Structures are given as structure tokens and as C-alpha cells.
């Protein structure tokens, strides 16, 4: 059994290589996980990545993996990748354009898996995005229920429609009183 290769930080100088803003754009998905042709409800996720004193992390990267509108992972469909990647801007902001995922299994609330990378993070961190307009499903979700109640809110994106698009705000806090829940996933 070969042992695992250790993680190392992504460092500060990755965006030109990994994100669509870089010099090798085009064929690796960026922040558009679904386009207009994809079935389902189009949504926008407007996120922020903050450090231990609440300052923006301007050199981070967030990746999302999600099911399609019927809760199926990895199904090839026109206009839907399931995976997206976004660098953070000087205000620590990132945006994803996607569709609302369906529930993956009975009893599970719709959610997306999230990986967070940044200089100063020696291991990337896993979290999840749930949706505030799924209160009934969220209350029954086994993963959310496994988290202590005072911290569950860090996993729930807040519905706040703008520009006629169903939108959600989601803040990832790396430290502090409201440190996001990160999973040993």
C-alpha cells in the first residue's frame, strides 16, 4: 500500500495557470457550471472568502462539484459540467453561475460540495453549500444534522435575488467566531 502524497499550499501564484483569467483559458471549466441550455433552475452563487480577522482573501480559489437538477452526478448533459472553479477577486469575492442541484437521495437536501484553496492553507478545506430556501429539506438532512446547531448556518447560502436571477450569498470564513464548518471528507 503506497502512502498518500502530502498536500502543499496552492501558493499565491496559481491564477494564471488554473483559473479562466489565466493565460491558458478555455477548456477547463471556470465559474460557469451550467449554461442556458442546461435543464433546471438557473442560479447564481455570490461568495466571499474571509480570513481570521474578516479581511478578504484576494488570492484564493474555490471549486464546486454538484449534481444536476435531478440529483444525478456526472451525467453528461448539454451545457452542464457539474464542476466549476473560480479565483477570488481583491474583495475576496467569487461567483458561480449554475443550476440548482436536485436532492441526491431521499432525505438529503440539495447541496454542492466545495473545496477551498489559498496561500496559507497547507491543506485545502472541504465544505458544502446548502440553500436557505430549502428549510424543510435542510432540517431533515443527515449531514447538516450532524453539525452542532449553532454552526449549521455557515453551510447555508442565503437567498437574495438580484438582476432577475435566483441568487444566493455564501460566505466562507477560515477562522473566527463564525468559522465555516469544514469537513474531514
Amino acid at each position: 500500500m503506497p502512502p498518500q502524497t502530502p498536500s502543499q499550499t496552492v501558493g499565491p501564484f496559481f491564477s494564471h495557470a488554473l483559473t479562466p483569467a489565466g493565460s491558458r483559458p478555455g477548456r477547463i471549466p471556470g465559474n460557469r457550471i451550467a449554461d442556458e441550455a442546461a435543464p433546471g433552475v438557473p442560479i447564481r452563487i455570490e461568495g466571499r472568502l474571509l480570513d481570521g480577522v474578516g479581511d478578504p482573501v484576494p488570492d484564493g480559489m474555490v471549486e464546486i462539484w454538484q449534481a444536476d437538477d435531478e440529483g444525478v452526478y456526472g451525467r453528461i448533459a448539454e451545457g452542464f459540467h457539474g464542476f466549476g472553479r473560480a479565483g477570488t477577486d481583491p474583495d475576496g469575492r467569487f461567483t458561480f453561475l449554475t443550476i440548482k442541484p436536485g436532492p441526491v437521495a431521499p432525505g438529503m437536501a440539495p447541496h454542492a460540495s466545495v473545496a477551498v484553496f489559498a496561500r496559507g492553507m497547507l491543506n485545502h478545506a472541504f465544505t458544502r453549500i446548502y440553500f436557505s430556501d430549502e428549510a424543510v429539506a435542510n432540517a431533515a438532512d443527515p449531514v447538516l444534522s450532524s453539525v452542532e446547531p449553532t454552526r449549521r448556518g455557515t453551510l447555508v447560502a442565503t437567498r437574495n435575488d438580484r438582476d432577475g436571477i435566483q441568487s444566493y450569498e455564501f460566505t466562507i470564513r477560515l477562522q473566527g467566531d463564525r468559522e465555516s464548518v469544514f469537513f474531514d471528507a
Partner: protein
Amino acid sequence: MRAVERLATRDWSSHPTQHYPRYRSTELRAYKRRLVPLQPSLSELTGPVFGHVAVDASDSDLTRNAVRSGEVLGERIIVSGRVLDEGGRPVRETLVEVWQANSAGRYAHQADNHDAPLDPNFTGTGRALTDSEGRYRFTTIRPGAYPWRNHHNAWRPAHIHFSVFGTAFVQRLVTQMYFPGDPLLTLDPIFNSTSDLDARNRLVAKFSPDLTEPELALGFEFDIVLRGQAATPMES
């Protein structure tokens, strides 16, 4: 759909300590609370598939993929290895992305203001898909060491950044490959953030006479082991 059948947890004896004071940037960016256990479900056991649409052959030759006029400057090298799971089985057709400084120790990134020359023919970025044996191969130039402001007279050892996907989203790995015999390794907080010596040494490539090509380039072997078992097809 591809999914991993069984998944061990991340091996925390191999991975770095998240809050590592010698690496100053961890001070405000390391999570402080205990990670919450998560029983893997399909959300963790599946992951994105990048086909050949995403990558073409020229992407893996960093000595050519950004040439405008003339030759890339520096010592040409070949870096190759296999992406394996913990069972020693190949992780096939998975995306490997690399990025690195040029031979003078400067990144083609707008935020890198180190006083060293840029190479107009080199961005230091590449990608490849592993083959049926899990093997990847890059042609590049040996990156230079460079200073950083972590502490007085701090220098990063020469390294190449690697990003690897695997099959399951939680197999995701971002790491750095170092070069054998580099005297900066013992001084580098990022390399030393992994406390286990054997684990650290797995980040150091091996010089390979077999990969070395006459009149062209020295070869280095760097295998990457992801957590968990290899992919098996599942009914969808």
C-alpha cells in the same frame, strides 16, 4: 458515472499541520476548529471527468506551449510519474495541472514582483491527462529558487506545483514537487510543514537516468498517491 468504492480518510500523519507558525500566512488562514467527520456519500465519491477535449498534446510541453519567438531559457528537464491510489493502482485519464517559476525564479503572474527577468517564451503552466497506466509526462525547464518575505532571507527551494483530481472529488490533491539534493529544503517552512520525514521525502522527485534523454534533457520521476481506491464503473 465514475465513483470510488471505498475511501480511507485523509492520512493526517502524511499531510501538513494546518496551523504552522513558521509559515506565517497560516496565522489568519488556517482553520482552527476540529474538522467535522463526514460519512462519504456520492457527493464525495464522484468527481469531475476531464476528457481529451480539455487537454491537447502541446499542453504538456512547457518549453513550447508559450513560445512567441525564440527558445525558452534554462535547463530542460522531463518530469514524469504515475498517479496511483493507495492500492497502488493507476488513476487513469485524470487531469494533472502544473505551474512553476521560470529558470530565474520568477512566475509569469502579475503579482510576482521578484526582481528577476521574465522569459517571454515561458508561462510555466501546463496540463496533461494520465494514460492507461496512470502516467503523465511534462517537458519543462528547471525552475529557479526565489526569495519570499516569510522571514529574514527566506528562499523557496525550486519546486513545481501540481494539481491532481483523481476520480472522487475528495481525492483532490494540490501539492509541490521538489528536487533532490536541494540545500534549501531543510530551511523551507512549507516543505517542513509535514512533520513526518518519510512523507516529506515523498515530495522530492528522483533523478531518473531512464527518463533522461540524450542531448535533450535530464529526467525526474515523481509519483503521486491519492487517497482511496481506484475507480470502478457503477450503474447510473
